[in-house]
């Protein structure tokens, strides 16, 4: 019966992938370790716009890989981030809306957290950052901390 042959072939393919292209062990460890990054004290700001996938309403143009615009909203704030790519490095320039001072923790998976200060207009920028997962935690002068959804930089 065709269905049995399909099931046999599918099972053979699955075993083949398990032998030839399994999940790398270090990534299994990373998946388990992701739990430690959970910030239960912070509100979550979700990704609401990504110029890579969405079209900007004002310009009707999709952003380029070199200049990517993303927005996160949650916990009463929006973070508008511009990600500039120059070779292997990324730089982020951010704007907190409504504008306010605050500390912005740059959370990267492999590194210790570094902190940038946002000025009185809510603006902040980073130095060069390597690619990989990134999440920002905003610690405003008043109110609850906010963490953005993780993004692959």
């Amino acid at each position, binding site marked *: 019966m*065709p269905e049995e*042959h*399909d099931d*046999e*072939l*599918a099972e*053979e*393919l*699955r075993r*083949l*992938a*398990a*032998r*030839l*292209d*399994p*999940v*790398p062990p270090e*990534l*299994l460890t*990373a*998946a*388990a370790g*992701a*739990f430690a*990054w*959970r*910030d*239960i004290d912070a509100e*979550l700001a979700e990704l609401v716009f*990504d110029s*890579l*996938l969405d079209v900007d309403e004002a310009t009707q143009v999709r952003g380029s*890989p070199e200049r*990517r615009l993303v927005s996160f909203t949650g916990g009463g704030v929006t973070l508008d981030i511009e990600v500039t*790519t120059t070779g292997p490095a990324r730089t982020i320039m951010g704007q907190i809306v409504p504008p306010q001072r605050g500390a912005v923790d740059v959370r990267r*998976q492999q590194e210790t957290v570094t902190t940038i200060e946002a000025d009185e207009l809510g603006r902040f920028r980073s130095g060069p950052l390597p*690619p*990989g*997962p990134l*999440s920002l935690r905003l610690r405003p002068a008043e109110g609850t901390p906010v*963490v953005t*959804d*993780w*993004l*692959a930089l």
Partner: protein
Amino acid sequence: MDPGEVGQLVTSAASGDATAWQALAERFSGLVWSVTRAFRLGNADAADVFQTTWLRLAENIGRIEQPDRVGAWLATAARRECLQCLRMAGRAVPTDDIDQLEGPPARDNPTEEAILRAEKEQEDAERAVALWRAVSRLPARCHQLIRVLMASPPPSYAEVAAALGLPVGSIGPTRARCLQTLRELLVASGITGSSSLS
């Protein structure tokens, strides 16, 4: 593991149970990895997408609307990360064609030499090479579907549908069609019949 057990793991992890999280990581890492490979990401990009997806689940674990369908949540999240990654890499196509994206096979996917070393018997090795090559030659949509189906443990059709952005009702018929296409590619490469292992 039935959906009820999966849902319970999500609920426990949301309460801070690291052992429950570990079980989720073991259960669904194969699925997330397969989604990255379905979109033909190389090792570095696949690792970034994989890690970002799991970090996102960690942050969102308390907000999952349907805990017993967390596999589909992960597949959807991985899909989104893969599409972002492909755009960042400059494989730019209009949105409606994005699912037809077919990059070149990643340089660091298993080579034929590695396959030959992995198989004990020459016959098995020839079939394994032919099968692996045939999968890589599938048209984009079939490659995506077949590669996600190759995850361990086997994914549900709901999870496959989420990974591909397709209606779940289309997965069964598309699977049958793509397996037939795969058989035709095998026949064309001179390999006939079913596996000597079955």
